[in-house]
């Protein structure tokens, strides 16, 4: 394997056992994977793990400091912070998986068509992407959120609109490289339909960089969701979002710091986890990109 030229490593299916071995040898990637697995477990098991329902208010027990009954204390409505943190993982993951699903589907489909067909399809897709790129990303998300009104659906729509052009542009660039490969020409000569060429011949070759992109993107999406919720444009009460919890907590940071600090810590650890995992996957799946500028 070590004697093969670089091109041979990056093209074609790699030995899964070898990849797994290299992944396990990378402490950063393992730490990232552990955090992500833990987070998914928390999100899935939130109703079992949480000691209280996330919307269980008790105004007589507002801003209670940590105790055996409330491990991280309570917020201004007397809701258990720990329970809300655990359910907040659901919100974060639900939004990020939805946005990722939408943007990968739309971005890959449009990017592949633009890259393979060229011509006016390429022009239309590229100009649409340019429009979104002309705005700083959060600015555009705020514009969309202002029009649609604050809600979780708004966050998903706004972030999907901001995020798909990046996927489309990357896909288009990857397809442009593949389009002139001999195996694609062979498929064309054989009369293979365009859809089949794209899905069966080109898609498998462009998936690894897109996986890397997606894993790095999740951190960005979670951060953006929290930003919008912090500004009041995102997920609404009583549904818990780490962003809006931090906003509530900041108002009482001097007297009751537990809400803001625990929310910030959850968010920071989550994003560090996804970024470490993303970096690890990039080193693994995309040797050419490893240690490069992006």
């Amino acid at each position, binding site marked *: 394997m070590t004697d093969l030229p670089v091109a041979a490593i990056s093209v074609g299916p790699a030995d899964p056992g070898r990849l797994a071995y290299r992944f396990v040898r990378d402490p950063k990637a393992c730490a990232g994977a552990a955090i992500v697995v833990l987070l998914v477990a928390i999100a899935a098991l939130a109703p079992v793990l949480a000691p209280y329902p996330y919307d269980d208010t008790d105004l007589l027990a507002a801003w209670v400091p940590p105790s055996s009954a409330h491990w991280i204390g309570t917020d201004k409505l007397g809701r258990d912070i720990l329970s809300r943190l655990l359910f907040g993982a659901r919100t974060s993951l639900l939004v990020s998986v939805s946005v990722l699903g939408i943007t990968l589907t739309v971005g890959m489909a449009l990017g592949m068509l633009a890259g393979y067909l060229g011509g006016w399809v390429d022009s239309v897709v590229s100009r649409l992407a340019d*429009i979104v790129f002309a705005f*700083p990303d959060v600015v555009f998300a*705020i514009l969309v959120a202002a*029009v649609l009104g604050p809600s979780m659906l708004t966050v998903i729509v706004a972030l999907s609109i901001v995020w798909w052009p990046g996927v489309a542009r990357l896909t288009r660039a990857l397809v442009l490289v593949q389009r002139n490969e001999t195996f694609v020409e062979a498929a064309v000569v054989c009369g293979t339909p365009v859809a089949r060429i794209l899905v069966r011949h080109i898609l498998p070759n462009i998936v690894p960089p897109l996986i890397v992109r997606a894993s790095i993107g999740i951190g960005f999406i979670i951060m953006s969701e929290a*930003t919008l919720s912090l500004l009041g444009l995102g997920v609404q009460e009583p549904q818990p979002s780490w962003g809006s919890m931090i906003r509530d907590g900041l108002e009482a940071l001097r007297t009751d710091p537990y809400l803001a600090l625990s929310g910030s810590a959850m968010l920071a650890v989550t*994003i560090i986890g996804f970024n470490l995992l993303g970096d690890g996957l990039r080193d693994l799946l995309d040797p050419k990109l490893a240690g490069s500028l992006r």
Partner: protein
Amino acid sequence: MTMFVLRRLLGLMPVLAVAIGLTFAALQALPGDPVAVMLSDHSADAELAARLRAEYGLDQPVWRQFLTYVAHIAAGDFGLSFRFVHTPVIDVLADGLKVSPILALAALAVAFPLGAFAGSYAAIHRNRWPDTAVILFLVAGISIPNFALATFLVYVLSIKLGVLPVAGWGTLDRAVLPVMILAIPCAAYLARLARALMLEVLQHDYVRTARAKGMSERAVVWRHAFRNVLVPLLTQTGVIFGGLLSTTFVVETIFNIPGLGRLAIQSIFARDYPVAMAIILLFTLFYAVINLMVDVLCAAIDPRLRAEGGSRP
């Protein structure tokens, strides 16, 4: 060179057209009747409502409203505020316009030298403890969201140690935390680039030549290699600036700074959409102009980029 600048200026037009079109469409699509917002408790007064509608041009057909909107923006006029009745948007923005650019430029002034130096320093000491320290800073700086960082720093520096004020604006000590929060992610991003660039530059022949001539290691690194790290870093200023504009909303809201970002968010909740849209438009314009300036600067430095279709290194 003049042709290049002109071409780039022309390229700005579609961006502006789209931004103007989108903000106008958003103004039309936004929920709620602006006149009802303005009147609040006088909503039964039909005559007053009609007068306001006429003053704000809301009685005109949509296409005419659009033409007025475009014409006014071309003259630097963003219309009238809904929240502060009879007040031009530009007057509402005036105070913020004095604050936000200072904040962004101060952050850039801190982030650029810090990122360039830290990244290069790490590359020179590759795989030793300075490198590890910088990489930890990178991962934390890029991953920890600005508001989480703000929470930690405010808690430790302002509340526990009491060395800096919690929030506000107007004095130097109040600016320290917001500028730090804005600068740290940018510095981390720049440091990551600088590290990668320096590692690459140190492989070049001219570095070996400089060493072979018997130059001191310090001169080789900082006089020869470092300059070649700076130019590609400069091209990233546009990206950095986009990030800064986005962070402005959060930092100004958290630290209660009377800038454009906080004003935009307040305006959205007060249904003062002309102000919010004007700020979004301004931010888009800033972003486009900064990117243009970076392109021109790079073209001035590297003639190859002036050719048609030339892309940045």
